[in-house]
C-alpha cells in the first residue's frame, strides 16, 4: 500500500470515527457541551464550509457568507413569527406556514446570493475579498437601519415556529443537535459530489486558469456566479439553523466580529479542504470556551481587552505560521513522511496553493 493510499484510509477511518462519536455525543457529553459547543460548532462549520467551498474549489475567498447567513435567518424570522398578543413585535410578523417560510427563506437567500455573485463574478482575489466584505457590512447596516424588518434590537421567538418535520427544537436540544449533524453530513456529501461533476471540474479549472478557461469557451462569470449561489445555499442552511439554535436574530449576528469569527474558523481549519470547516469550528469553540472561562471580568491581565484580543493573536499566529490551517499541517506532515519514506516523488502541487499563498 502506498503512502498516499494509507493517507486516504487514515482519513476515512478518522472521518468515520468522528461521525460515530458525533452520533453518540448526546450520551457522551453534558447538555451544555452538546448545545453550546457541538451544536454551535456544527452550525458554524456549515457556514465555514460554504466559505471553504468557494475558496478551495472556486478560488474565491468570500467574506459575504456571514451576511448571507444573516439574510437567511432574518428572512425566516420575518416570515414565521406571528402577530400574537404579548408576543414578538419586531419585524414583519408575516406568520406564514413554517415549512413554506423555510423554503421561501432559502430561495430568497439563494436569489440574493446569485445577485451578489453576479456583481462580484468579474472580480478576483483580493478585490473579491473586499467586495464580499462590503456585502456583509451592507447587509448588517440594512437590517439595522430598516426598522420594518428588524432594526437594531433583536427579532426573537424564531425557534417557536418550526416546520412539523423539524419538531420542537426549542426544548428538545438533542433533536436540534441531530438536525444540525444531518445537515452537516448532507453539506459535506453535497460539496464532495459537486466538485466531481463537470460543473465542479470546470469551476476548479477557472480557479486555476480563468483566462485559459475563458478562451476554451467556458463562461467564467456564469460559473463563478453559480458557485456563489451554491455557497449562498449552504450558508442559508447554516443561517436557518443558527436562527433556530439561538432563537433570535440581531444585526450583530452578521456584524464585523461575526464575519471575522467565521473567517478565523475557516482559516484555523484550512482554506483548502472542506473537512477543515468543522475541524476549525470545533477547535475555535473549544478554545473560545476554555479562554472565556479563564478571563477575569476586568479584562485580560496586563494588556487588558477581551476575548477578541486573544482571538486576534491566535488568528495572527495561524496566518503567520500555517496559512493553510490545521488541515494544511496534516497534509504537510504526510508529504514530509512521503519524502522520508521513498524515493523523492515529483510534488504534484495542485495550484490551489493559490488559495492563500498567491
Amino acid at each position: 500500500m502506498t503512502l498516499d493510499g494509507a493517507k486516504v484510509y487514515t482519513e476515512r477511518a478518522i472521518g468515520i470515527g468522528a461521525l460515530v462519536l458525533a452520533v453518540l455525543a448526546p450520551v457522551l457529553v453534558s447538555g451544555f457541551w452538546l448545545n453550546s459547543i457541538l451544536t454551535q460548532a456544527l452550525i458554524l462549520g456549515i457556514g465555514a464550509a460554504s466559505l471553504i467551498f468557494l475558496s478551495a474549489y472556486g478560488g474565491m475567498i468570500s467574506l459575504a457568507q456571514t451576511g448571507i447567513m444573516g439574510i437567511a435567518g432574518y428572512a425566516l424570522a420575518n416570515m414565521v413569527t406571528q402577530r400574537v398578543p404579548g408576543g414578538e413585535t419586531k419585524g414583519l410578523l408575516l406568520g406564514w406556514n413554517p415549512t413554506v417560510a423555510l423554503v421561501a427563506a432559502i430561495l430568497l437567500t439563494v436569489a440574493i446570493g446569485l445577485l451578489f455573485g453576479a456583481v462580484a463574478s468579474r472580480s478576483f482575489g483580493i478585490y473579491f475579498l473586499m467586495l464580499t466584505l462590503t456585502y456583509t457590512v451592507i447587509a448588517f447596516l440594512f437590517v439595522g437601519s430598516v426598522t420594518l424588518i428588524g432594526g437594531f434590537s433583536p427579532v426573537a421567538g424564531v425557534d417557536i415556529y418550526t416546520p412539523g418535520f423539524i419538531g420542537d427544537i426549542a426544548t428538545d436540544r438533542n433533536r436540534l443537535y441531530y438536525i444540525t449533524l444531518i445537515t452537516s453530513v448532507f453539506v459535506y456529501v453535497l460539496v464532495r459530489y459537486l466538485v466531481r461533476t463537470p460543473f465542479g471540474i470546470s469551476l476548479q479549472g477557472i480557479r486555476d486558469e480563468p483566462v485559459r478557461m475563458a478562451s476554451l469557451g467556458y463562461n467564467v462569470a456564469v460559473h463563478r456566479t453559480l458557485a456563489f449561489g451554491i455557497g449562498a445555499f449552504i450558508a442559508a442552511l447554516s443561517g436557518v439553523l443558527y436562527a433556530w439554535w439561538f432563537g433570535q436574530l440581531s444585526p450583530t449576528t452578521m456584524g464585523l466580529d461575526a464575519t471575522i469569527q467565521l473567517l478565523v474558523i475557516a482559516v484555523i481549519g484550512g482554506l483548502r479542504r472542506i473537512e477543515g470547516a468543522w475541524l476549525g469550528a470545533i477547535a475555535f469553540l473549544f478554545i473560545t470556551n476554555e479562554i472565556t472561562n479563564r478571563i477575569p471580568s476586568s479584562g485580560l491581565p496586563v494588556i487588558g481587552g477581551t476575548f477578541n484580543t486573544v482571538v486576534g493573536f491566535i488568528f495572527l499566529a495561524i496566518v503567520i505560521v500555517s496559512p493553510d490551517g490545521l488541515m494544511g499541517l496534516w497534509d504537510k506532515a504526510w508529504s514530509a513522511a512521503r519524502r522520508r519514506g521513498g524515493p523523492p516523488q515529483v510534488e504534484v502541487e495542485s495550484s490551489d496553493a493559490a488559495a492563500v499563498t498567491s
Partner: protein
Amino acid sequence: MPRAAAAALVVFAILYVIVIASPPDEFGGGDWRTTNTGSAFDDPSAFLTTVLDGMTFAGLLFIVASGFSLIFGLMRVVNMAHGAFYLLGGYIAYEVQQRMTGSGFGLQPGEVNTWEWIVPWLVAMVCIGVFGLAVQQLLLRWNQGQDLRQALITIAVSVIVADQVIAHFPRTVPAGTQQFGGNAVTISWPGWTNRLVDLHVGGISYSLSRLAMLALGIAVGLVLWLWLHRTKTGLVIRAGVDDRQMTSAIGINIQTTFAIAFLVGSALAAFGAVVGGSQASIAQGRDGEWLLFSLVVVIIGGMGSLAGAAVGSVLYGLVFAFAVAYLPTAGSDCCTQYSVVLTFALMALVLAFRPQGLFGKAT
C-alpha cells in the same frame, strides 16, 4: 440589456430628485413620491444643501480613503486595519485635546482655539503613522506578494487593535461617571468654525466646519498630487505602482518607499479620524464603518488611483446625502434608512461596466 436597465434606473433617479419628489404632507401619510425634502424644482435650496452635504462628506471620505488607496496602489496590501487605525487615531486626538484644554468632558466648541485642534491632529497623525509603519515592518515586509495572506494579517491586527482601543479608551470621562470602553466622544473643532456662512446662493447659510471638511479634503488631494507628481519620492512611488520589480531592478530601494507610503497612508486614517471625530464622533463601531467607506470608495473609484479615490468619494458622498433627503418615506415606516441599499446599487452599477473600478487599471 442589464446595462440599458441600469442606465434607465439612473435617469429615473435623477428625474425623481429633480421633478418627481414631493415634500412631506403635514398630516402624515403620503405616497411613493413623498420624501424628506421636495424636488429640486420645488425647493432648490434644499437641493443645494444636499449637494453641499454630499460634497463635504466626500471631502472626509477622500482623506480616509486616499490613505487606504495609496497603500494598496503601491504595495498591493489591502489594509483591513485602516478602520482600526481610524478609531485609535480619533481617540488619541481626543485625549490630547482633553489634556490641552483641561476643561473636562463637556467641551464647548467656543472654548477650543486653533492650536488646541492642530496639536491633537498632529499627535494623532504621528502616532498612527509610526504605528502603521511598525505593523508594516514587523508583519507585512517578509511576505510581500502574498496579498491574501497579508489581508488576513491586517484583519488580525484590526481585531487586536479595535479590542485594545475599546478596552483602554476613552480615558477622560465626565466627572462622576464610570469609565466605559468605546463610549462615543467628540473632538471639538476650533471655535471660529462654529458658525454658519451665508453663501449668497439660493439664500442658504451653511456650516463653516462642514466647509472646512471639504477644504481639508481638497488640500489633502492637492498635497498628495503635488507629492506624487512633483517630487522625487512621488516619482519613485508612481514607478513602483506601475512596476515594482523593474523599479527595484534599476537600483531604487523600494522598501524605503513602501515604508514611507505605509506611514503616510496610516497617518491619513488618523487625519480623517480627527476631522470625522470633530464633525461627528469617535465611538465603538466607527472602525468597521470607516473600513466599509474606504472599501466602497476604492472599489468604485479603482484601486490605487488618486483620481479614482476622489471621484469615488464624490459619488459615494453624493449618493449618501441624496439618499437621506430623497428616498421615499411614505407610510408608517418613518425611521427607515434605505440609503445603505444604494451603496450596494452604486457599487453594482459601477462594477457592471468596469469591474476594476472607474479609474482602476485592468489587472
